[in-house]
């Protein structure tokens, strides 16, 4: 049964916004890659929700409505990118389109609210994994920078990150 979000007052709307903003931005970033663009899209989705409040009966879940709106707005953004994109950007745009198409049928971990679970599963990872994931994902370092810090070849870092993310994917899939 989908969860029904109950918002009666401006205060609750603000609370709802603040609770879900980060996850929604992460979700939009899947498609548009940039956090500033994603943030704009999420804001627009919240404004839309606001404007539709008299016309729309959300009978399933406000969150599902927001995710759907964000998805559609992201698609619009990719469309615009396609029109303006220079040649060397076109493969990224193509990948974006492939990904957006994939999420028409699939749900992301963020929509499944699995992010907490993911964080917990980090503890289950083999030693050495936490180190590279921390540097790559939390500190946002590029593989080259990690390789410099650890004084190992870039290729070793790439392989290690690949193994660790795969392991994490397996753990979350099983849970």
């Amino acid at each position: 049964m989908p969860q029904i979000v109950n918002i009666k007052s401006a205060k609750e709307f603000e609370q709802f916004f603040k609770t879900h903003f980060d996850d929604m931005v992460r979700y939009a970033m899947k498609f548009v890659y940039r956090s500033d663009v994603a943030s704009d899209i999420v804001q627009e989705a919240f404004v839309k929700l606001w404007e539709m409040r008299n016309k729309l009966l959300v009978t399933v879940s406000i969150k599902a409505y927001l995710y759907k709106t964000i998805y559609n707005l992201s698609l619009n953004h990719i469309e615009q990118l396609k029109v303006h994109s220079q040649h060397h950007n076109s493969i990224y745009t193509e990948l974006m389109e492939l990904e957006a198409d994939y999420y028409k049928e699939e749900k992301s971990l963020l929509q499944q609210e699995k992010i907490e679970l993911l964080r917990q599963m980090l503890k289950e990872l083999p030693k050495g994994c936490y180190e590279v994931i921390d540097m790559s994902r939390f500190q946002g370092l590029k593989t080259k920078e990690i390789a410099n810090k650890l004084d190992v070849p870039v290729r070793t870092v790439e392989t290690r990150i690949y193994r660790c993310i795969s392991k994490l994917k397996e753990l979350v899939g099983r849970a």
Partner: protein
Amino acid sequence: MKELKDIEAMIIRSLDKTATEEELSKVKEWINHSLENKQLYFEFKDVWDATAEADIPSNKEVWQNLKPQLTNRKIFPGWAFKAVKIAAVAILVAFTTYSIFDYSETKQDELTYVTVNVPNGSQSAVTLADGTLVKLNAGSELIYPSIFNQDERTVTLKGEGYFTVHHNKEHPFIVTAGDIEVRVLGTEFNVMAYPEADRIETTLIEGSVSLNTKGGDFTKGIILKPGQKAVYSNGQMNINEADIELATNWTKKGFNFKNTSFKDLVIRLERWYNVDIIILSEEVKDFSFTGKFRNNETIWQVLDVIKMTTPIDYKSDDDKIYITLITD
């Protein structure tokens, strides 16, 4: 084995944004190679994205920016939340009474039912025993009892019908279409419920109707006002302002499209002209089309008009029409 490792490194580089253009194309090629690869890549990226400590702007600051855009102080009217709750109950009821519903259907079998089938390429109109007039669009089916001797006048619609219901307060008129029920006293409305379409649209022209999910409690249904349209899709009901002309144009021997997706456009044309149309390029399905036809054009004239505004071409062969994307 070496190749597999190469792709692993390239995947990391594509996510890390350190990949060269050549590596990116290879990743794209690899993704498109099989469904397994595609699934693996996007599941992998999903974990990658979900673990990111991205530089997400502070929600407090964003809220300050957003707040002035929300002009009205009162955010959600109370009724909306009541309606959400009611709808949730209606859906629950719809699920729990599903088996009972099957039973009541067999009980009504004592009545004689008439089925009207309207083939593709034509339209039809039926007057029911109570004086109700139903215009049926191409490719539709209506099942109704030969006499209405029950408390409720119930008919079943697949496809599209325009109803002018004879007023009778004692015996509500109910149209069952897919997963929804439209309940009326006396009124004019249009229901579009083709099984192959992904939604059911109910447009109210005059009077008042209430909508609920099949088997749900109608006293808690959603009430439509004249000029409104209810769109039921993926278990969700949205109420919008209707474009009456657009919704009822077919009854006047014409058709009208407004931001209609190619997928839906093709379904309509197939039914209207009794032809088979095949879209060969996936991209075309997502295009949309806006335009009006009077229905005295041939299918070829219609396709030529569509060609003027959309980058498509068509050819015909063996009674089938093939639509392709023009790329340059």
